[in-house]
């Protein structure tokens, strides 16, 4: 109950804060428009050249798949690693650890709270624009789509937070985790199906995307393809497995790291 109250309070405060600064929404929107907009035009051109279908995927499927990637990225969950790194390097961690709230949970709610407002605005407006301009593929109208999409979306949020929290916690042992962050972030970008939709992945890359935590953190991009109807339970199962593995890793990392922190007071 206490945790839910904490989450509610953080969400409310941060959403109010974000609404006061329209410039931040402008930055999020231009980021999406400049990346996704150009990609859509590129793939429109590519699909026209290839007769409307590549590897069984249509242009509408690819556009929605990439849109899911970019709208998911507006949640900004990857920033949790920088937040944790900043807490550790600035020494703020000792203050936060002495509070009567679980540190990692606090950071998780904070991160979701920061991203929820731009995510909702960008997703609603973007989805409407794509539905009107490009249309909705049949695969998104079957009854299975919505419930499995919600499930894999929640799973993607948890896996993303866990992956990036592990990166952040590494700051307890090395002085600068930024390079590790770049590599992990690019792995997520490639295997998540951002610039190159998963329908165009070579076989070996598809397998890596399927079984690695980097791909699992953006499985929402798989939901629009025809194959989703047959692989959804497998992909959601893989997400569950990664949640268990990464959750255990974080538990041990954090318990070991906390022992290294010396609270000086004052």
């Amino acid at each position, binding site marked *: 109950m206490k945790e839910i109250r904490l989450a509610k309070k953080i969400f409310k405060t941060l959403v109010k804060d974000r609404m006061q600064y329209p410039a931040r929404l402008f930055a999020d929107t231009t980021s999406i428009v400049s990346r996704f907009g150009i990609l859509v035009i590129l793939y429109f051109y590519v699909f026209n050249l290839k007769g409307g279908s590549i590897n069984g995927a249509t242009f509408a499927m690819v556009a929605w798949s990439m849109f899911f990637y970019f709208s998911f990225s507006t949640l900004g969950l990857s920033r949790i690693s920088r937040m944790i790194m900043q807490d550790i390097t600035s020494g703020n961690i000792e203050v936060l650890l002495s509070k009567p709230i679980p540190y990692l949970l606090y950071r998780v709610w904070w991160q979701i709270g920061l991203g929820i407002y731009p995510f909702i605005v960008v997703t609603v407006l973007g989805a409407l624009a794509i539905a009107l301009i490009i249309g909705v593929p049949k695969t998104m109208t079957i009854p299975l789509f919505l419930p499995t999409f919600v499930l894999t979306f929640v799973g993607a949020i948890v896996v993303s937070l866990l992956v990036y929290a592990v990166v952040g916690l590494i700051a307890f042992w*090395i002085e600068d985790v930024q390079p590790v962050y770049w590599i992990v972030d690019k792995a997520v970008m490639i295997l998540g199906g951002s610039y190159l939709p998963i329908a*165009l992945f070579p076989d070996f890359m598809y397998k890596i995307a399927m079984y690695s935590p980097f791909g699992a953190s953006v499985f929402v991009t798989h939901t629009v393809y025809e194959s989703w109807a047959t692989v959804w339970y497998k992909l959601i199962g893989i997400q569950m497995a990664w949640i268990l593995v990464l959750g255990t890793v974080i538990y041990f990392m954090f318990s070991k790291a906390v022992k290294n922190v010396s609270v000086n007071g004052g």
Partner: protein
Amino acid sequence: MMQEFKFVLYAIKKNIQSSAELRTSFLMNVIGMTINNTAFILLWVFFVKSVGVIGGWTAADIVALQGFTALCFGIVFSFGAGLRKLPEQVTNGTFDRFMLSPKNILARVCTSSFGVSGLGDIVFGIVCLVIYGFLIHVNLLQVLLIIVLVVLSTMLFFAVAVACYSASFYFDDATFVVSGLFELFFTPSLFHGGAFQGAMRAFFMFVIPALLVGTIPVEIVKNLSMGKLSIVAIFTAFWFVLSIKIFNHAIRRYESSNLMTFGG
């Protein structure tokens, strides 16, 4: 002029020496950024493998595109990393110290910080251009063109970055506006050149000069197009003059916060 140039070189030298003190972090940043950039090559190479040649662009051209863009980005934001801190400095009032400096303000702002990760971009850019040279078996003229284009593209990149970051003086919450504006310029410069056709190509050449940083230079080297080279040269000169004017106009809007800040 010569004195300003000497100051810039001195500031850069000191910045590098200071950054190199943290050796592990320094090396990790350089190596990390190089690996990070490889991701874009992988993505576009897989793209070319999956869909074939689009708009005449092959995998080798993508390597060159990433080389040009990374090199420009690396040179500007390693030696002139202070520019990226401008929105923050204007907001919190630490820009005061540049206003009081007898040196050229723009040179002082840019060289106030050094971006270690930018060195990774430079290494990556050079490696990509060398690989491109081997892949297309460049002749002497093409080597010269690459060198000239790196200089022109870097000047253009710097000019547009200055114009974008000058927005820091016009908005209250400038950090995000500036990053949005810069994103609009930078993101298209990383994309597959075949994506830009017709009106979109004209827009990203003449309105937002993103394609002049990488895409057009690659096409110039490939096709030995002197017409396109003159377009890049003219637009570089135009943007350079324009950005200095924009910056000088923008700093007039700065209001001192009367903070006592020194150094940097």
